[in-house]
C-alpha cells in the first residue's frame, strides 16, 4: 500500500513537472518588401570630331575639351554625357559602382576590319545617390546620374562610330541599395 502511494506520488509529481515544462505563445513576423532597383543605360554622345590625333574629353556635365587637331570649332554637333536612369524604392539610397577601367570601344563597323577608337567613361562620384519620391509602398522612386568620358583619336577615317557597331563595346555600371 505504501509502495503504491509512492508510485502515485511520483506520477503526480511527474505530471506536474510536465505541465511546467511546456508553454505556448503566438509569435509575429514583419517584413517590408521594397521595390527592386533598376538601371537604364545612358549614351555618351561625343558629337562631331575631326579626323586626326588627340584626346577628346567630356566632363560629367557635358563640357568638351578637344586635344590635338580634333577640334570641330562651332560645328561640334550635339554632344552630351550619358544620362543613366535609376528606379526603385522612393527615398532609398543607392551607390553607383563600376570596374576600375570603364573602357569602351567605338567602332565604325567597317567590314572586314572595323576602325575603332578606344575610350574610357569617367568615374561617377557623389555616392550615395538618393531616389526621389519617398512615398511608402510605391515604386516610383527615380534618379539619374550623368557620365562623360574620353576617347583617343589616332587618324581614324571619317565615319559614324558607335559602341553598338560591330567591333565596338560598352562598359558596365552597377547600382546597389546601400
Amino acid at each position, binding site marked *: 500500500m505504501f509502495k503504491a502511494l509512492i508510485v502515485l506520488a511520483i506520477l503526480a509529481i511527474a505530471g506536474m513537472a510536465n505541465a511546467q515544462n511546456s508553454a505556448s505563445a503566438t509569435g509575429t513576423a514583419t517584413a517590408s518588401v*521594397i521595390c*527592386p*532597383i*533598376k*538601371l*537604364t*543605360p*545612358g*549614351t*555618351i*554622345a*561625343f*558629337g*562631331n*570630331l*575631326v*579626323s*586626326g590625333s588627340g584626346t*577628346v574629353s567630356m566632363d560629367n556635365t557635358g563640357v568638351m575639351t578637344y586635344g590635338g*587637331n580634333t*577640334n*570641330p*570649332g*562651332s*560645328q561640334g*554637333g550635339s554632344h552630351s554625357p*550619358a544620362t*543613366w536612369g*535609376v528606379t526603385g524604392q522612393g527615398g532609398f539610397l543607392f551607390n553607383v559602382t563600376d570596374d576600375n577601367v570603364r573602357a*569602351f570601344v*567605338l567602332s*565604325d563597323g567597317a567590314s572586314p576590319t572595323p576602325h575603332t*577608337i578606344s*575610350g574610357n*567613361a569617367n568615374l561617377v562620384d557623389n555616392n550615395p545617390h538618393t531616389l526621389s519620391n519617398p512615398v511608402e509602398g510605391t515604386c516610383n522612386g527615380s534618379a539619374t546620374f550623368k*557620365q562623360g*568620358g574620353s*576617347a583617343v*583619336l589616332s587618324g*581614324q*577615317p*571619317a*565615319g*559614324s*562610330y*558607335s*559602341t*553598338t557597331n560591330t567591333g565596338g563595346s*560598352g*562598359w*558596365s*555600371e*552597377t*547600382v*546597389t*541599395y546601400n
Partner: protein
Amino acid sequence: MKTAYKLFLTLALIIGSVASIHAQNTASATGAATSTVVQNITLTWEQPLAFGQITPSGSDGTAVMDLSGVNVLGSGKINKAPTTTNCTEMSTSQPNQFGGNQFPGPAVFEVTGQLGWTFAITLPTAAVPCNLIDLNPGGAPALVVDNFKATVGNPGVQGTTGTLSVGIGIQDFAVGGTLHVPANTVPGRYQGTFLVSVNYN
C-alpha cells in the same frame, strides 16, 4: 527520411529567398557611346603671291596686290616696267611653297575637308620680310609685305571665312597684300614666306 526531405526543402527555400533578395538589390547595365568623325581639313598652296616686276623710284612707295590679281600701284611712283626689283614668291608655310612666278597675282590656296562645313582663314597680322635672294643676297634691307587680305570662292568674297561647298568638300581662296618698297631699293629678286592657316570654325 521524411525529416531529411523537410530539412532539404527548408534549406532550398532559404537559399532561394536569399538569392532573390540579392538580385533585386542591385542592377547593372552597359553604357554606350557615339561619335561622328569628319574629314580633317587640309590646305594646299596652288600659286604664290607675286608682285611681278616693279621699278623703284627715288621715294618710298607701295604696290598692292588686290584680290582680283591686279597689281595696283600706290604712292611713290612705282612702275610695273621691267625689271630690277622683283619681289616674287611670297608664299605660305602651310604648306611651305616657293614658286617662280614672275607674273603678278595673288596667292591661291585650296582647302579640303568635310562637305558643307565652314572654315576660318588666319592671315599674318604682322609685316613679313621679303629678302634679297640673288645678286647680293642679304646685301640690301628687306622689303616688307603687310595688310594681307583674302577672298574666298570665285567670284571672290573678301573675308576670312568660307564654306567647303564645292565637290566633295573643296574651296579655294586668294590672298593679296601690300608690298612696301623704299626709295632707291637695291635691284634684285626678293623672296619671303608667310604663314596662312585654316581651321574649322
